[in-house]
């Protein structure tokens, strides 16, 4: 009985994008009301941010290490291995840090937000809050949205630092590039505003997009186990597409 023809798939996608957009407005309007639930936002930063630290740090380390290996090989073709520090740092700050962290964040925190809110809906917890005169948008949805927004730039900074450490480890301690060259080349070519801060902007926007999608999917999941499972999958799919698309747009306009 599934309508699988192309037409309805496109209409469904448009509907979903539009509904997500409206939900963003709802969340933003609820921010003043959710300020009295500051404790809940802090708790969510703990759950989505602090608890993602380990995976982010390990991934950052390995991404930095492999980046160093690959770029060393490429640069050695042109005899420019002294630029390794610069290239590793720029790749991390401008592109890999925000994007890889965002994809990991969507898988680690986005899915858990969707599943949690979906189950809260299925077990009437959201209705219960409404009946206890607590607005579930302000108490459940907005704090999670804000937590994603706040956590992502911090996670990206940690990811970049670990990546740089990994890159340094491979480039200097293993491949034998001079430590001074690595750092001085990097510090004379990496710019705070166009590289570090623009990367953080990306992280901020990705964080907003992921947590918006995750909260929206959870909030609108059908209250069945199948519905929650599908919503979790859709969170990952939509978040990944949106991250990569936004990445292109932001790179084109910001950098």
């Amino acid at each position, binding site marked *: 009985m599934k309508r699988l023809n192309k037409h309805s798939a496109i209409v469904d996608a448009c509907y979903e994008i539009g509904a997500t957009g409206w939900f963003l407005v709802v969340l933003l309007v609820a921010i003043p009301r959710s300020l009295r639930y500051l*404790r809940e936002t*802090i*708790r969510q*930063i*703990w759950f989505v*941010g*602090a608890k993602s*630290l380990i995976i982010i740090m390990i991934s950052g380390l390995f991404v930095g290490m492999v980046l160093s290996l690959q770029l060393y090989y490429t640069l050695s073709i042109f*005899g*420019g291995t*002294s*630029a390794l520090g610069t290239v590793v*740092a720029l790749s991390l*700050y401008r592109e890999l840090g925000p994007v890889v962290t965002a994809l990991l964040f969507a898988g680690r925190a986005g899915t858990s937000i969707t599943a949690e809110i979906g189950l809260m809906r299925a077990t009437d917890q959201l209705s219960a809050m409404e009946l206890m005169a607590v607005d579930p948008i302000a108490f459940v949805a907005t704090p999670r949205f804000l937590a994603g927004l*706040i*956590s992502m*730039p*911090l*996670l990206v*900074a*940690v990811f*970049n*630092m670990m990546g*740089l450490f990994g890159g340094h480890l491979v480039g200097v301690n293993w491949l034998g590039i001079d430590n001074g060259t690595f*750092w001085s*080349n*990097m*510090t*004379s*070519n*990496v*710019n*705070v505003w166009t*590289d*570090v*801060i623009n990367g*953080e902007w990306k992280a901020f926007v990705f964080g907003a997009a992921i947590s918006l999608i995750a909260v929206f999917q959870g909030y609108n999941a059908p209250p069945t186990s199948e519905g929650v499972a599908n919503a979790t999958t859709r969170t990952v799919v939509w978040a990944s597409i949106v991250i990569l698309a936004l990445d292109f747009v932001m790179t084109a306009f910001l950098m």
Partner: protein
Amino acid sequence: MNPRRSYVAGTGLFILLGFVALAYLATQTTSLVNYQGGPNYQVTAEFLNVGGLKDRAPVKLAGVRVGTVSSIVLDQRSMEAKVSMTISKRYNEIPEDSFAKIMTSGLLGDQFVSISPGGSREVLKNNSQIINTQSALQLEDLIGKFLTSSGSSKSGG
């Protein structure tokens, strides 16, 4: 410590760690490292051609960084590029007749201003101008010279 407080502390720790990482990246791995805080003075020099020299390029003396290029503008009267440099006050005994050259770090690296000290007793002060300059070496010019000289040697032989 009761559990309600411990996650607040954990969250605080996480936020702190994030900001420390960000501060580290911003100040220790970028050109901010080379930012000369504290007192400094301005020196200018005019070059026929600055090549690929950019704002915030380093100014070095004997390979040691002493300052940064703060602006590059075209002087309409002399039709030369006027390069302003910010030099740290720590280096306040650079002779007035020093020689400013635009050099390239490595074959394809970035360009910077290199100062070779002269012998004068007078030293550079705020707003002094370095008279003796040498423009950037243009790779294209070099290759052109090489080609013509090898061509002429062939015809001569």
